[in-house]
């Protein structure tokens, strides 16, 4: 345990001057890096608002005679995008698939983590080992046999074929186990049982509210993972009406390969919802990931 005061003990007078130049340098470099990271976003926004017939004439904002011409900005690409019946449909598919997978996956993970964290039972150790081992199974290994299995179950080209294999996130079980171990005291659960609270009731009313930050983080992780997942729906779904955005956008590229404005408008519409969601949840999310999430 390090005393917190050590952190501030660097504030001795002679060092302040030195660290001021260091802080300034850090700002300059971080500003440059942040600027570079934002360039593709800004470029995308401009590209989807530029007139599509002169897409490559300018890099960012449209110009006329060497001056930026804001009046040339147009929503025409978005109008073309939503005139196609398929795109709005794909947006709805993405929302449906992502929210269903996120809610079911979080529930399954939270229940599993609760069982491993707060019950002593025969086989609990084996189950914990199973969960930890499951985290390391590489997804691509399951692609071919998973496809064959879904074919046998008759789940190919159905939403359930995409959702069901995704709702047992071993990593989530582990995350919830850790969260519940540190945030839900055993005595509280025993007290609830003494008061006659049933097991299911104890879980939903006593335990789950105490790990609300983890619930929010994991909902977000699952939602994002599903929204951005390409290979799952690409392999399972065949009917274009069922495609989520991640798959539909690649179709857009091959079908309308000359209409860059349309492609960029579609891309913008696809990433804005998750960026907005992230803005609301960023504190929990970044901290939750830093606590040890896995890159999907």
């Amino acid at each position, binding site marked *: 345990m390090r005393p917190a005061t050590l952190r501030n003990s660097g504030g001795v007078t002679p060092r302040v001057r030195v660290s001021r130049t260091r802080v300034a340098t850090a700002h300059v470099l971080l500003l440059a890096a942040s600027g570079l*990271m934002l360039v593709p976003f800004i470029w995308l926004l401009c590209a989807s608002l530029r007139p599509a017939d002169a897409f490559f004439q300018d890099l960012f904002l449209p110009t006329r005679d060497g001056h930026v011409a804001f009046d040339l900005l147009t929503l025409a690409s978005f109008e073309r995008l939503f005139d196609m019946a398929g795109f709005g449909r794909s947006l709805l598919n993405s929302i449906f698939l992502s929210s269903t997978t996120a809610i079911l996956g979080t529930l399954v993970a939270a229940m599993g983590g609760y069982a491993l964290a707060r019950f*002593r039972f025969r086989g609990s150790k084996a189950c914990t080992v199973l969960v930890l081992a499951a985290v*390391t199974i590489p997804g691509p290994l399951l692609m*071919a046999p998973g496809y064959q299995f879904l074919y046998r179950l008759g789940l190919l080209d159905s939403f359930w074929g995409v959702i069901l294999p995704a709702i047992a996130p071993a990593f989530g*079980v582990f995350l919830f186990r850790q969260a519940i171990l540190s945030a839900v005291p055993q005595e509280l659960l025993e007290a609830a049982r003494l008061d006659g609270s049933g097991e299911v009731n104890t879980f939903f009313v006593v335990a789950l509210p105490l790990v609300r930050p983890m619930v929010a983080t994991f909902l977000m992780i699952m939602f994002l993972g599903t929204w951005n997942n390409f290979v799952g729906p690409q392999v399972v779904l065949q009917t274009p009406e069922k495609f989520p955005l991640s798959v539909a956008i690649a179709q857009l590229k091959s079908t309308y390969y000359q209409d860059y404005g349309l492609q960029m408008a579609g891309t913008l519409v696809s990433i804005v919802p998750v960026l907005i969601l992230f803005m609301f949840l960023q504190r929990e999310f970044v901290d939750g990931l*830093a606590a040890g999430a896995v890159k999907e």
Partner: protein
Amino acid sequence: MRAASIADVPGAQPRLAPWLFLSPFLLVFLVFTAYPLVQAMVLSLQQTFGPQHTRFVGLRNFQFLFSDPLFWTALRNTVVYSLGSLLIQLPLSLGLAMLLETPGLRGGRLYRVILFSPSLVGVSFAAMIFAVIFEKRTGLLNVALHRTIGWNLDFAWLERHVMPALIVASLWMWVGFNMTYFSAALKNVRRDLLEAAEIDGAGPWRRFLHVTIPEISPVAGFVVLLSMIGSFQLFELPYLLLNSTAGPGNRGMTIVLYLYQTGFENSDLGYASAIGWVLGLLLIVMTVFQRVLVRRSEAA
């Protein structure tokens, strides 16, 4: 009455409840992960045409794999990409994290959010953006580099230099993500050690090498492993950037892209499973290797 009788025995707990809570996970896991995993073993010994027609071929899939030039191309490309990402991206992630952890820096939260945000963009969508940014003559990257350092406008990212293009695109996507791990690790570097080193006359570089690096090495090892595991599964970025192909001359061919093409474009799920097992084995070897390294450095 039941509740009271449980409380009467200290430490006694309901016996069915944990299984009730675990059952959804266990059920879905057994059906959709464990069973396919076993099937992957069976399939890898078969030649298939689509999900229905199979033929037992024993170990011939693996035999064929080792003499399959396309597999070696895929393996070589995957290794090039992984090492490239590792050597370029992770030092940058660490550098950014160190800047973020500069004592007295304000506004770190905003930088963090901006630098992290590209990792929220799905690979399908990032590929859409970068396909246009990487265009010859007209693409943002070539034009910007041309105007600033006189770069060749005809530099063919997606036709010839596919691996550098993939490294650049994934740098944008993941540098801020990996930064968050390093940032968390740097927060735990013992201040007193750094100050003691400074009092002993160690300059910033020596403090970095002899205090910071050893202090963050457990996290760094973890980030390296995660990054390698992720890199070895590279598939969607090249596949989508190269219009659902492996690119001219298979320059964008990776292990998982080859697995996908084999299984879903040539309909040989058996051979695809064999590729999957070789990939799985490579990942296991890497993980064990990292564990051994960590253990050795802890023992030292």
